[in-house]
Structure formats: structure tokens, C-alpha cells
């Protein structure tokens, strides 16, 4: 249900002036945008936002932007934030989009109020509250978007930095380097399992020579991965287990449940070849 007062009316009937004043403000503010968004795009975004804001305000109470009726406006701001994150904007540069709308809206309210000064201050307060809330929502989704983008980039980096290597027909190796954390281990393990199916490899060698320490969580992940590999019908050898890690595993009370371990990748490969019935002769 729409709220009382003339904010909605003002927005609707004075839309063109609001738009042109706002666009002017945005252009001035974006002198610092350093060309990350074109003037044309900015104008289009302003117009589109104003359209959805005006139509929503006609039927919705402006005091609660979390109501379902405000979804189109929230979605617009979420998309905007995401674009701004990808374009390299900061959160305040993004929030300016909303806050620079205040002045033009106040101007429109002044004209709409006529002699009703009490009504004017009431409506200006409503407008401020509304735009503040929308501005905060923008900042919040900007931050969430940024975290999501960073997360995704990290995942991509992880996949790139931990490639699965085919050592021989039916034998894959996964050299892990650096400290292993829960999230990283999970991603890497999933891609190993996928590769096993794709290449129909019988044996996967997980080499942890380059891993300085292993904690309980990581040990458990390794164990889960090996169990999953076996359920799929392949087998796993863990190589590069250094004395320190062996001690940690025992101290942590982790039961390796009959998983074969080898001191280094070469030994693991020799074993894998043997298991696959491959032998070499010297000439």
C-alpha cells in the first residue's frame, strides 16, 4: 500500500526534471570515474533506476524497502553493484549513484509542496530515509558482490595452480604445494575426481611433498577424497609424506585406513605402474 503524502506524486509528475538534474550531478561526480563507465551508460542507468523507483513508489510504502514490492528496485541496485565491482569502483563511488539523487528529489518536493511547509519537511524526511536505506542496501550488496568476485578469483587461481597431471596411461598425479586449507582442498579434490572419470584413470597419486604442515581438517579431507576415489572404483596413493607430517597424523589420531603412502613421487609412480601391470626393461 502506498504511503500518504506527496512524495510519490512528486516523483512521478516531476520525473524529467529530477532525471536531468540527477544526471548532471552524476556527470560532475564521475569526473573522478576515470572513464570506467561511459556517460551514455550512466545516463541510461539513471533513467532505468528512476523509472523503477517511480513506479514502485506509486504502490509501495516507502518506509520498508525489504518488502517484496521493492524487489525490482533492490535487484536493480544489486546488478549495479556487481557491475561496479567488476569495473573496479570503490563502495563510496558506487553509493554516490543513490546519494546524488537527494538534491534533485528535494527540489522536486519543494516545487510540489507549494505553501505547505509542514508537509514539505515531512516529505523531505521520508525521501531522506528512503534514499539512505537504498544507499545502504547498495553498499551492502557492493561488499557482498566484491567478496563473491574475490572468492571466485581465488577458486580460479587455485584450479590453475594445482593442475592434475597425467603421468602415464591410467595414472594421474596431483602435486599439492603450499599450505592446504579446507576450502582449497575441497575444490582441488573435486577436480581430481572429475579428471579420474574423464581419463578413466585407475590410480591417482596425491603428492604432498610441497605441503609444510597438515592439520586435522586437511587430513580428514584427504581421507574423504581417498574414500570417494575408491567408491568410484579407482585407487589412491599419497606420496611425499615427510617425517613431520607422519608424526602429526599419528598425534592427531587420524586413521589412514590402509591408504598406501610413499616417501616420494617416484616411488609412488613405480608402485602405480606395478599395480597396473606395467614394467620396463633395459636394453
Amino acid at each position, binding site marked *: 500500500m502506498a504511503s500518504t503524502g506527496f512524495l510519490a506524486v512528486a516523483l512521478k509528475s516531476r520525473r524529467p526534471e529530477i532525471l536531468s538534474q540527477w544526471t548532471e550531478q552524476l556527470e560532475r561526480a564521475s569526473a573522478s570515474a576515470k572513464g570506467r563507465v561511459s556517460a551514455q551508460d550512466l545516463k541510461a542507468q539513471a533513467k532505468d533506476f528512476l523509472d523503477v523507483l517511480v513506479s514502485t513508489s506509486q504502490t509501495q510504502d516507502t518506509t520498508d524497502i525489504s518488502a517484496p514490492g521493492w524487489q525490482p528496485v533492490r535487484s536493480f541496485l544489486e546488478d549495479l553493484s556487481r557491475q561496479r565491482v567488476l569495473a573496479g569502483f570503490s563502495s563510496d563511488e558506487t553509493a554516490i549513484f543513490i546519494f546524488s539523487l537527494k538534491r534533485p528529489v528535494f527540489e522536486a518536493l519543494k516545487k510540489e509542496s507549494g505553501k505547505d511547509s509542514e508537509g514539505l519537511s515531512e516529505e523531505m524526511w521520508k525521501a531522506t530515509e528512503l534514499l539512505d536505506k537504498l544507499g545502504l542496501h547498495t553498499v551492502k550488496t557492493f561488499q557482498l558482490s566484491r567478496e563473491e568476485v574475490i572468492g571466485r578469483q581465488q577458486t580460479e587461481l587455485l584450479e590453475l595452480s594445482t593442475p592434475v597431471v597425467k603421468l602415464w596411461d591410467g595414472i594421474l598425479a596431483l602435486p599439492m604445494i603450499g599450505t592446504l586449507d579446507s576450502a582449497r582442498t575441497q575444490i582441488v579434490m573435486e577436480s581430481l575426481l572429475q579428471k*579420474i572419470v574423464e581419463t578413466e584413470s585407475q590410480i591417482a597419486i596425491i603428492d604432498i611433498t610441497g605441503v609444510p604442515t597438515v592439520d586435522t581438517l586437511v587430513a580428514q579431507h584427504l581421507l574423504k577424497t581417498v574414500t570417494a576415489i575408491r567408491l568410484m572404483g579407482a585407487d589412491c596413493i599419497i606420496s611425499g609424506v615427510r617425517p613431520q607430517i607422519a608424526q602429526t597424523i599419528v598425534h592427531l589420531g587420524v586413521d589412514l585406513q590402509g591408504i598406501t603412502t610413499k616417501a616420494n613421487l617416484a616411488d609412488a609412480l613405480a608402485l602405480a605402474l606395478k599395480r597396473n601391470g606395467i614394467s620396463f626393461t633395459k636394453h
Partner: protein
Amino acid sequence: MDRIPILRMGEFLLVTIQVDMHDQLAMQLQDDLTRAIDKKGAKGVLIDISALEMVDSFIGRMIADISGMARILDARTVLVGMQPAVAITLVELGLSLPGVATALNVERGMVLLRRLLAESSGDDHFINR
């Protein structure tokens, strides 16, 4: 009423599970399979789940039961084709299907079955027939 077909693959039996399993279907399968093992004197059973995008505890129990029944009838069972997402989920769920041999696909499954049978041909039998 639909049933899951049981095919002959050389000296083994092949069951391909493609549809969503429910109680009746599972019981029917166990019935049909035990009968078939007995009638054809089959020594090995391959259960192909490469088409299953999900395996829950119900299906897991069914597979373990089939494997157990087959064993008592002197046949070995190999489960083939589990998808990675399914394997990861089963491990998280805590289902490890102990005693069920696995292979990547039907071909490898048959190789495994032959090896298992060759290994056990010298075993004592505890069941007097």
C-alpha cells in the same frame, strides 16, 4: 509394474539402474537377481550406477544387501560407474559401503570380477550344499 532388467554379460549378470528407485522396485530387483544367480549359476554381478545422479541411504542399503545376498549364493558383486558428485556426497553422508567392490566402468568391473573369482577359487566353502 516395471522391473529393472537383468542382462547376461558372459558368465556374469549386469544390472543397470537408471530410474528413481522405490521400495517395490528394489525388492523386486533383489528377488529377480537372487533367482537369476541361482538359475544361471552366475558367479558375478555388475551393478551399473553411472546414470544415477544421487544415491541415498536407501539405495546404498539396497546395494549392500544385494552384495550380501549374492555372496551367500557364491557370487561376487562389483559396483561400477559412480559419479564424482555422488561419491563425495556418500562419503560426507557417512556411507562407505564396506564389502562392496567397485570399478570405474563395466569393462573394468568384469576384469575385477575375474580376478576376484580367480583369487577365491582356492577358498574353503562354509556353506554345505
